[in-house]
């Protein structure tokens, strides 16, 4: 059953100064109660800006943010630890600012300090805290009053491992209470929130991937797209794909001598003709592809990407260059479609796992390479060669 949105962005544009570049353009989004969404994209692409718009920290240059809930918990990417307050005094003050008082305030602060293991730092000044501990204070202040909307800016960036493990649990608690959660992520850790919607930002445009990755993969399957990528851009393309929520299955180099032989034509043909389920297409050398490399990224079935203004484009399963694979196989990095005739480029970089973008660097040798990826989302950002 459809629920009315908790917060809605209506044709929102934002730039930081007059005549400056647009950071966000014509954004239309909504987030309903009990839902969660992950904002994906490069570092510096505008994820934090979008989160701050939703939180009410920033005001849109054009458009409106409507139906913002009363209680919002915002955890910035870096907690401002340069303050003279002790942990307990700070949390007590923030709880009081949020409207808590008396025994409620004391109990709530004590509860969160205990849950986030902040008790040993009770009387330590914020400025003296280790960075990861200070970040936990930032998390605690956002949760002192159960938020209707919890906004976490890069939650897997500044926390210790124990807190990183706790975050999905906290998100679930907010959702169970009817709240919504918005998370930004450039590390490709979206697998920690398997049922979250995915919003992708690129060039100021935000596209929403519907349905969620898990639902899409389950309902529509996963497809593999081959991409031809100049070797020097492999790392960037892999990072792009992972940031967009897709799974990069493998990176392999291509024998340059094969460029003028038969498989090249096959590879080109594969780009133009659906070859669903074909295993040998991946073996095709790039041939006439100027980049001299080929690659595959997998995309989920037929649900189109929402947000037509996005530079991304949807690739339904079975469309040009895409081949359907078993979702489970794609997720495990063994889609059963990998081209075996081409030399391996140091093996897959945690194939099928949305690892950090640096994974590709370590596995990309000099010379031609190809990228093979699986994307369980409904649309795939395919900018290979672009």
């Amino acid at each position, binding site marked *: 059953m459809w629920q009315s949105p908790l917060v809605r962005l209506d044709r929102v544009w934002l730039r930081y*100064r007059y005549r400056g570049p647009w950071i966000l353009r014509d954004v239309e989004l909504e987030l309903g109660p009990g839902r969660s969404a992950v904002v994906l994209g490069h570092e510096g692409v505008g994820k934090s800006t979008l989160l*701050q718009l939703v*939180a*009410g*920290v*920033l*005001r849109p240059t054009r458009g409106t943010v409507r139906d913002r809930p009363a209680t*919002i*918990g*915002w955890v*910035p990417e*870096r*907690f*401002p630890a*340069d*303050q*003279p*307050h002790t942990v307990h*005094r700070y949390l007590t*003050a*923030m709880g*009081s*600012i*949020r409207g808590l008082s008396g025994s409620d305030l004391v109990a709530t602060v004590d509860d969160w300090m205990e849950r986030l293991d902040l008790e040993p730092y009770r009387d330590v000044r914020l400025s003296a805290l280790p960075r990861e501990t200070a970040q936990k204070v*930032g998390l605690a*202040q956002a949760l002192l009053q159960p938020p209707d909307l919890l906004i976490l800016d890069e939650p897997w960036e500044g926390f210790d491992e124990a807190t990183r493990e706790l975050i999905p649990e906290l998100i679930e608690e907010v959702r169970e209470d009817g709240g919504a959660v918005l998370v930004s992520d450039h590390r490709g850790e979206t697998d920690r929130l398997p049922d979250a919607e995915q919003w992708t930002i690129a060039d100021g445009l935000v596209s929403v991937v519907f349905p969620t990755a898990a639902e899409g993969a389950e309902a529509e399957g996963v497809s593999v797209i081959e991409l031809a990528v100049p070797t020097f851009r492999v790392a960037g393309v892999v990072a792009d794909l992972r940031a967009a929520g897709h799974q990069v299955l493998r990176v392999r180099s291509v024998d340059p001598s094969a460029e003028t032989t038969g498989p090249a034509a096959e590879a080109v043909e594969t780009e133009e003709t659906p070859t669903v389920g074909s295993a040998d297409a991946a073996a095709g050398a790039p041939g006439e592809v100027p980049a001299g490399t080929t690659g595959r990224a997998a995309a989920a079935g037929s649900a189109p990407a929402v947000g037509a203004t996005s530079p991304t484009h949807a690739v339904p399963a079975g469309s040009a260059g895409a081949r359907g694979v078993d979702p489970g196989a794609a997720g495990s990095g063994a889609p059963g479609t990998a081209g075996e005739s081409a030399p391996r480029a140091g093996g897959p970089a945690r194939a099928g796992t949305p690892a950090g973008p640096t994974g590709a660097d370590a596995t990309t040798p000099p010379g031609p390479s190809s990228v093979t990826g699986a994307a369980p989302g409904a649309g795939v950002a395919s900018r290979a060669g672009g």
Partner: protein
Amino acid sequence: MISMIRMRLGGFVWTARAVPPLAAGLVALVVLHGRAGAEATEAYGVSAVVLFPILAWQTKLLLDTEPDTQRRLVVVAAGRRAEFVGGLLAAGLVGLALVPVALAVPWLVGGVAVPDRPGEVGTGLAIGLWAHLLALPAAVGLGALASRAAVTRPLYGVMILICGVAGTFVFGLEESVVPWLAPPVLAVARASTAGPTGTEFALLTGHALLWSALVIAGYVGLRQRRA
């Protein structure tokens, strides 16, 4: 609101940022009034003039104490309006705390001659209080306008503070043709020395409050654009 103000004041005191303006204010008052033996009304008028830039500087320091991200956290927790009202009230309270000091110091360092008639002490204190209270909101407004939350670059804040203070003194001169451009700090000092008439009292009070309101409105406008 109280917890927000308390948090700001706590940060201001614990980071020792409260010390420089307090020290500067005390030094200025002692140097100015030391053994001057002036009439109370004249001494207080001059005190208010001297304290005006110090109060503005103090406001800027107080509002700049909180990191930008912390200010945004408070905006999310309490709302934008509550956040900037809390900041202004905190600055006003800190400034208000300096007023009794400024009223007491001239007596302690021999800056005020003991009047022949006891009633003149009360009149002098009342006029002094009026002069300082008129300078306070204008100084808070100027300091807020120069704070990091309102300007895009730190240099702009410093320039606003310097130009604001210089403009107050230049445009406030008796020969000025545009005295309404500046808060009436010098005019109040002149009126204090001579003993303000009822009309002067009303006009100068209205001028000071209107100027302060406009500057604070400017601050609010700038805060609408910046997080």
